[in-house]
């Protein structure tokens, strides 16, 4: 028998980046706001305290801050014909757990997408013709433009205290920044991080070839910063423990460093941890949500939490899972192409070349999560899709983003992974390798999607969500194109040896090696209820008091790390809700 809690104005599912932003923005409106977080509470001290948190085995290898598959996972298959199996051991992607969510263990790569990425289908059709779009590619426009999001990118970046160098301020190209970026209204809040040796070598080589390297935008503070909520960041000390770790130094932007203590002071905001939301409850006519039902781990019982507004702020995959379980939107059917919920799941197409230098020492123990130099000369707005035979693009980059001694050592391919030979190789090569990577877009396809698994259930008896995903020729051509651009740069740097790793023809999705935790789509935004789950304000088409935040809204993946767009969309939605929805609750479109 479920207990029922007193009604709230707003209930938020998940207290990571978007949950924290929506929490504070709604609480500022005087609403009674409750956030439900399935994991534990986390504070910089004691949870990320020095030196306990820089334990590579505990957090880097054994995933101390990640969700445990036994509590929450998906099943995965590559084709419609395969039988999906549970993702029992974390590998390809790492959903975060606890207060702060993935916002505690990210690297701090924070980008704006390009103008054409928000109108991708129109851009392709207008510039290259609809016939270059492969038959099974289901890319869409977002329903929102870069120009509309610009003030919200700006706000998010100033909230984070982003370090970097503008390349385009109101149309004026700034030397040293990214000349291909969309115009921003002002410079970064903080100057760029100091660059490591590998980044400097890469940038010199790229510049010599006529390219335009610039410092990677970093949510690792290069100096002290106080944001709009009065929250504070201290300067990064380049300890090299960002990705998979909470920051011990108050330097990496996270819900903890940027929002939570300000939010905790607000008497009309509260949150409950160890409270996993099981479903969204709908009114009988299914036109509105009435609240959520969650599992109270402490009381070991189901709880119904009524609310006037429900905001799904969990990890992208969980937002989609909750929608599928709650009957929100029609489930997507790959056979007919009809239905929307679960449609257009997409990932990220990355590749890289590793260079080995006997005579160069890179001091790999010095690094920051988003340290490095990047170039956008082969970005999605720089490529002639018709001529090159693919739709997409990448940024190309180098820098020491982690200083972890076990996982951070690059070895020439063919080296034994254990024993005497491995030890000899480690001694020889530690500190002598660097990488140049490409981080690229991934298009949406008719048979890459999310639905409920017919066989497997979770510990609450709910069907697991099933992911159907595989690499496609278009994206493999894109990454091979990047290879053809990166390898000449690498060769120009005269390494003793080098090796490349890019997806090749016929590559199949392998869930074992870590690739990226940029899982997007499934609850996509758009301007047509027949092809999207939420409208341009992230409001469910079918239930006007239900909003779905986060990267599940991406109709296909951008070429960049998603957090910048996730943050901008959160402020965009918060603004629309505050100005337009709260005074008159209704469908905003």
């Amino acid at each position: 028998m479920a207990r029922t809690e007193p009604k709230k104005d707003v209930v938020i599912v998940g207290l990571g980046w978007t949950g924290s932003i929506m929490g504070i923005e709604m609480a500022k409106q005087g609403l009674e706001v409750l956030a439900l977080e399935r994991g534990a509470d986390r504070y910089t001290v004691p949870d990320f305290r020095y030196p306990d948190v820089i334990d590579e085995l505990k957090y880097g290898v054994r995933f101390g801050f990640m969700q445990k598959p036994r509590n929450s996972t998906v099943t995965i298959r590559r084709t419609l014909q395969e039988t999906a199996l549970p993702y029992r051991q974390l590998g390809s992607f790492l959903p975060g757990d606890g207060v702060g969510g993935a916002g505690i263990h990210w690297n701090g790569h924070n980008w704006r997408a390009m103008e054409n990425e928000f109108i991708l289908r129109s851009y392709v059709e207008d510039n290259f013709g609809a016939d270059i779009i492969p038959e099974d590619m289901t890319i869409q426009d977002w329903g929102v433009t870069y120009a509309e999001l610009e003030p919200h990118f700006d706000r998010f970046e100033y909230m984070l205290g982003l370090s970097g160098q503008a390349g385009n301020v109101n149309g004026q190209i700034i030397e040293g920044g990214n000349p291909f970026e969309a115009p921003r209204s002002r410079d970064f809040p903080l100057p760029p991080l100091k660059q490591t040796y590998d980044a400097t070598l890469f940038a010199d080589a790229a510049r010599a070839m006529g390219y335009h390297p610039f410092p990677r935008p970093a949510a690792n503070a290069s100096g002290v910063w106080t944001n709009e909520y009065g929250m504070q960041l201290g300067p990064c000390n380049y300890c090299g423990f960002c990705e998979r770790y909470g920051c011990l130094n108050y330097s990496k932007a996270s819900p903890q460093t940027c929002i939570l203590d300000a939010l905790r002071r607000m008497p009309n905001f509260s949150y409950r941890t160890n409270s996993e939301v099981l479903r969204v409850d709908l009114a009988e006519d299914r036109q509105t949500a009435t609240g959520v039902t969650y599992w109270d781990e402490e009381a070991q019982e189901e709880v119904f939490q009524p609310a006037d507004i429900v905001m799904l702020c969990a990890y992208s995959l969980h937002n989609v899972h909750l929608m599928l379980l709650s009957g929100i939107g029609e489930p997507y059917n790959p056979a007919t192409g009809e239905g929307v919920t679960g449609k257009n799941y997409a990932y990220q197409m990355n590749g890289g070349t590793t260079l080995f230098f006997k005579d160069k020492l890179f001091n790999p123990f010095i690094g920051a999560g988003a340290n490095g130099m990047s170039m956008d000369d082969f970005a999605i707005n720089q490529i002639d899709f018709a001529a090159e035979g693919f739709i997409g693009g990448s940024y190309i980059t180098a820098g020491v983003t982690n200083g972890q001694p076990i996982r951070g050592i690059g070895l020439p391919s063919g080296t034994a992974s254990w024993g005497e030979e491995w030890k000899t190789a480690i001694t020889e090569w530690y500190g002598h390798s660097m990488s140049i990577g490409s981080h690229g877009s991934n298009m949406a396809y008719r048979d890459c999607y999310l639905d409920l698994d017919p066989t497997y259930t979770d510990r609450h008896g709910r069907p697991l969500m099933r992911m159907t995903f595989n690499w496609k020729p278009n994206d493999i051509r894109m990454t091979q194109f990047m290879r053809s651009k990166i390898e000449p740069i690498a060769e120009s740097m005269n390494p003793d040896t080098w090796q490349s790793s890019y997806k090749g023809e016929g590559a199949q999705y392998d869930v074992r090696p870590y690739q990226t935790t940029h899982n997007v789509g499934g609850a996509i935004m758009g301007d047509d209820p027949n092809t999207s789950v939420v409208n341009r304000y992230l409001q469910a088409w079918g239930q006007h008091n239900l909003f779905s935040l986060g990267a599940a809204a991406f109709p296909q993946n951008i070429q960049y790390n998603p957090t910048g767009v996730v943050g901008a969309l959160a402020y965009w939605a918060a603004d629309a809700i505050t100005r337009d929805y709260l005074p008159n609750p209704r469908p905003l479109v």
Partner: protein
Amino acid sequence: MITFLRILTGLVLLGLVVLAAILFMPVRTTPALAALPEDYTPPEGSGEYAMRLADCSACHTAEGGVPFAGGRKIESPLGTIYSTNITPDEDTGIGSYSLDEFRAALYDGIRQDGAHLYPAMPYANYRKMSEADVRALYAFFMDEVEPVSNAGPETALPFPFNQRWGIRTWKWAALSEPGELSSTGDAAYDRGAYLVEAPGHCGACHTPRNLVMGEAGYTAMDGDFLMGGEIDGWTAPPLRGPDSAIRNWSAEDLKLYLASGRNNHAGVNGEMQLVVRDSLQYFTNEDLDAVVAYLRALGDPAAGDNAPPVDPPRTADRLDPSAGGTQAVLTAAEPGMALGPRLYLDNCNACHFVDGRGADQVFPELDGNPLVTAPSATGLIDTILNGAEVPSTTVRPYSLRMPDFGHRLSDEEVAELATFLRSAWSNSADAVTTADVTARRETAEERAAAE
């Protein structure tokens, strides 16, 4: 030192017992300092604000307890004193106090039943509060605070301190004139003087104690006033005079420290955290400016409010001058370096950096930090052992915490590290011994066991 004071105080009190017996006569309480109409109603919000100014909640609320319901342990040189319930509960609180009885407690330390209050209750300072604030406080506690029934633990000090009648003789020796404040005629200074000398009761910690354990001064007119004191073994730093660190702070830094517990130099620590958390962050902008104007005039009367801070007196870096000083030693990080700087590199450097300057408002400066160079190293030792936390405040909501290092450093190592800090950069303070550290660790353990 404490034992010596106990004996001394005991002797003085015993001597005065005879006098007290002779002078047995009814206690006379201080009348209102101003005549306000019988039907005077304090302005809306003034009661709560007066409570913030006087910081009633810091002492009268137990850790994690209901506000004003008492029960907080206060470690005094005389022994442990428990704060009382000041909610308007008729039986266990102050619900049956008349205005005159309430004023007598504030001004004269007299309980409703006539018993004398221990001077942990700062009536020596409160007796300078205006009648308007007394009325506001009375109205607040009677009408705005919910009554809570909480008898709480009784204070039971050892003989002779459990003889409350003795406090009467102490009061004759220790208290100053009610309502007496320093004044220059400058509106900001005078308001600041009122806030600091009266409700703020800053002197209770920051003024040294005299032979009878009274504050050695109560207003800026007294030379020893705010010249530094001690609380729970920690140095309460001087707020005036040549050794005062804050005289090197700008007005802006001083104001930010009061409002948020952090500035470009320091982070609030020890008992002062409670003052920022429960009192100072609620001061109006004007009142903060007044306190700043007053303190800066005290620190350096020539400075005035807007003058730049005095140039910090930097003595020569005395750590290994042949190697180029502290920063050079830390930067070189030679494997054979001494234990103190090595421990600093391994434990402190990530935030406080090789120059000991930390980062503005986030990581406190250790070079010239009054906690580091205080006459008593207790505060520094406690901070290394147990960590520290600046409170969440309106202007700076982040409760920044420094982790504890007691679980990974031995007493010898803490002593080495503390000694290094007290002699690094331009710091020049006495060494810390292993025994000093052991004593503080034991004190912390005893207290934890007693909880």
